[in-house]
């Protein structure tokens, strides 16, 4: 189907403290009705704060599956959005309808429940283990609705909900999907409450963004948008809410929790979004601000907005978090739904909580910008921006438009090469608990990483930092002021920083919500590793972490190639990272997969041809084909998803302009589990008419999940580079993920 790059919103779904559907939430928001009340789902004994914006519906009322609350909130919102869009399985090719969900720390409520049972009751329930990883959420939504398009969980904390929308648009524009169920979801949790409490970042009373700015109020919910290619929407006669124009993603490279006080990173994301939309700052009518209500966010955001928009005499800004609370991984998408409504209705929801005295103070701080205090503003809203800024210094901004608007085509379909590889892989047997990495002070010293920096890192972040720095060094890439904004990062993971999450949660269960660890909490978000890496390396471009089971380590490569092709960056670090500690070993043992777990991190430097040639980079291999596919099966299983593996291999070969029989070797995903191994050999034998070598790297390094998946591609790249007798021309790396996700890349001799 022709794709002229227009993406439109055709369905909305929302559940948050303001109500259980979009209309109820919108009505409350424009009337300044708050959803913030006393917290009921978390024990706030001895805490200085006890306010939250919880969803009144019980988990059972949201959907009837036995999933974590984050998945159930998301299914509720996705159901509304799909119905609103008139989704009809007959009129869609369901392999071209995907699910991209933003989330913060996965199934936090289930992690709490498992370890509460472990510590205080009769032991953790095995059924709760598969509810823990963030990777489950998009898979559960895809399974519920039978959607088999590209599936991903974007786990960049408070910016995740906006990034997921941005990625959905990019995939539609590059022709990889017709439509996405895109947004974010997060449930209320003791983990987040205890963590922000420990950081003294909670407001004692309801949050007061751009006003008292004395802390956040946590919320929960899910916001889902059906984003569809314009042609597809028109062909089926869909109702169109508005257009999604450009977006921008950036890194502060500054601090793991605090934003840059000068607003540089925030402004970089907003500038990218406005520029990618073909707009000027003076065109913008409304900005749904990040507006968390912490002093640091509000000061930096005030500065960013004044710097960019002071020449705009009609811009209005509001923080709907003053009513919805801060819904973390769902925040950006909940705000996107409200922003779309603002564009459609020409009504701007207010920032509530100003007294007469506050209004006087606001006049001084606001200047020409209208902060819509207390009551809604009715005015034409043709162009609106929604901002989200996260821990780790990750920023995202996206633009919605009432009418069609030509956006610049920055597409850069240059060839992409692997020019650097950095690996840290566990090879040491750890008393029957799988294979682990030995990390010593020398690993840090090699890259000039000081103890003052590395001692803050949890294991997941340590692995990522070392492999990322090794890859940059191997490629000879030096990050400086001239290229910091042209380099981005995509990290894939199955389980994220589970060890740190569990450590923090156990402490909270034992010591009480009031005694969470301020030191540990920043590391419990999946994107902390990418944050630390960007801070140390000085990388200021795109920065996303994808949680999507084992195959996330190849998906990160596909995603990074997409970012290069979109023209946003010239160099990308694509990584796969997973840890094997006593925590992960115990959880996997209970699941009874019989796997030998490994751990590590593998990072690849991907580069456009121009960039690689300009600096005379040595090339390992060219990436000539990428594919991400999905066949929705129950999370934790793979049986029944064979079709998606076939599509991954054939689509990647098609993109490379070859047939499977042109492939010289396969780096596969066999891990010793009988189902996994049999799917690999069955499908490969169906796809290839001749015998080709299938290389299994996990025999040596164990099931290091996403790290092993990236290593499959790294191994293929090395074989191609070292091959002097023409044995290899193309090598395929294909990886699988529980729930039915597959990613494949075809590498070619450079």
């Amino acid at each position, binding site marked *: 189907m022709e794709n002229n790059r227009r993406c439109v919103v055709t369905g909305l779904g929302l559940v948050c403290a303001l109500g259980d559907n979009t209309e109820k939430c919108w009505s409350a928001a424009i009337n300044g009705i708050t959803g913030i009340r006393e917290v009921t789902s978390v024990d706030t004994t001895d805490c200085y704060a006890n306010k939250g914006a919880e969803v009144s519906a019980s988990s059972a009322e949201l959907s009837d599956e036995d999933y974590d609350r984050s998945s159930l909130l998301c299914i509720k919102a996705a159901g509304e959005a799909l119905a609103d869009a008139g989704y009809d399985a007959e009129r869609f090719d369901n392999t071209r309808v995907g699910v991209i969900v933003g989330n913060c720390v996965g199934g936090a409520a289930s992690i709490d429940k498992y370890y509460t049972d472990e510590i205080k009751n009769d032991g953790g329930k095995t059924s709760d283990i598969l509810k823990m990883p963030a990777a489950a959420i998009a898979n559960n939504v895809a399974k519920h609705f039978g959607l088999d398009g590209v599936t991903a969980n974007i786990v960049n904390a408070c910016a995740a909900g906006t990034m997921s929308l941005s990625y959905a648009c990019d995939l539609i524009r590059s022709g990889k999907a017709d439509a996405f169920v895109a947004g974010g979801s997060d449930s209320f949790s003791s983990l987040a409450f205890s963590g922000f409490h420990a950081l*003294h970042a909670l407001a004692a009373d309801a949050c007061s963004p751009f006003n008292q700015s004395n802390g956040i109020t946590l919320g929960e919910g899910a916001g889902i948008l059906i984003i569809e290619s314009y042609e597809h929407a028109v062909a089926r006669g869909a109702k169109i809410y508005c257009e999604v124009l450009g977006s921008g993603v950036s890194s502060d490279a500054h601090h793991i*929790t605090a934003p840059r006080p000068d607003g540089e990173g925030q402004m970089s994301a907003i500038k990218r979004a406005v520029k990618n939309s073909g707009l000027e700052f003076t065109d913008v009518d409304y900005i749904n601000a990040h507006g968390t209500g912490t002093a640091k966010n509000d000061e930096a955001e005030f500065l960013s907005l004044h710097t960019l928009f002071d020449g705009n005499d009609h811009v209005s800004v509001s923080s709907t978090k003053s009513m919805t609370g801060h819904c973390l991984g769902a925040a950006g998408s909940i705000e996107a739904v409200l922003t779309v409504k603002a564009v459609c209705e020409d009504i701007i929801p207010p920032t509530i909580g100003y007294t007469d005295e506050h209004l006087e103070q606001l006049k001084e701080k606001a200047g020409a910008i209208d902060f819509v205090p207390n009551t809604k503003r009715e005015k034409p809203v043709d162009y609106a921006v929604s901002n989200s800024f996260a821990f780790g210094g990750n920023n995202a901004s996206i633009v919605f438009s009432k009418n069609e608007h030509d956006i610049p085509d920055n597409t850069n379909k240059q060839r992409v090469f692997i020019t650097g590889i950095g690996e840290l892989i566990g090879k040491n047997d750890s008393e029957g608990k799988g294979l682990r990495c030995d990390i010593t002070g020398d690993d840090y010293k090699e890259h000039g990483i*000081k*103890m*003052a920096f590395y*001692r803050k890192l949890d294991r997941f972040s340590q692995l990522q930092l070392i492999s990322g720095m090794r890859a940059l060094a191997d490629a000879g890439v030096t990050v400086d002021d001239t290229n910091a904004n042209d380099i981005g990062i995509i990290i894939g993971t199955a389980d994220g920083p589970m060890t740190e999450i569990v450590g923090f949660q156990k402490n909270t269960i034992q010591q009480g919500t009031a*005694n969470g660890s301020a030191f540990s909490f920043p590391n419990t978000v999946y994107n902390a590793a990418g944050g630390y890496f960007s801070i140390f390396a000085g990388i200021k471009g795109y920065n996303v972490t994808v949680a999507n089971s084992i195959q996330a380590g190849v998906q990160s490569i596909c995603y990074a190639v997409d970012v290069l092709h979109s023209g946003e960056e010239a160099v990308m670090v694509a990584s796969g990272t997973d840890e094997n500690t006593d925590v992960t070993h115990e959880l996997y043992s209970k699941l009874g997969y019989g796997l030998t777990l490994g751990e590590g991190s593998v990072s690849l430097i991907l580069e456009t041809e121009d960039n690689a040639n300009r600096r005379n980079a040595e090339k390992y291999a060219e990436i000539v084909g990428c594919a991400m596919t999905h066949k929705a099966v129950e999370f934790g299983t793979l049986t029944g998803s064979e079709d998606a593996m076939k599509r991954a291999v054939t689509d990647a070969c098609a993109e490379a302009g070859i047939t499977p029989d042109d492939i010289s070797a396969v780096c596969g995903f066999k891990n010793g589990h009988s189902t996994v191994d049999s799917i690999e050999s069955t499908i490969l034998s169906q796809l290839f008419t001749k015998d080709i070598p299938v290389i299994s790297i996990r025999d040596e390094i164990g099931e290091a999940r996403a790290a092993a998946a990236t290593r499959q591609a790294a191994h293929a790249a090395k074989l191609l580079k070292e091959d002097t007798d023409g044995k290899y021309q193309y090598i395929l790396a294909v990886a699988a993920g529980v729930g039915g996700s597959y990613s494949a890349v075809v590498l070619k001799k450079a």
Partner: protein
Amino acid sequence: MLVENLRIPADELEYTSELFGDDIGLDSIDSIEIIAGIDNLFGVQMTGAARENFQTIETLTKFVEENMGE
């Protein structure tokens, strides 16, 4: 506590090491952790205590000794 909660390698830590200096580089988040840890271990409140008390293990020990049992 400094080794376990703040992950300072034990072999790099002396009683007179500058905790907030360039090498170990503790920051405001770490000081929240030290305050909570000392309250937990010794029942001594350090909220609002003067900055110099946080400089080294020696000064922290002195503060705790002087304020224990109050």
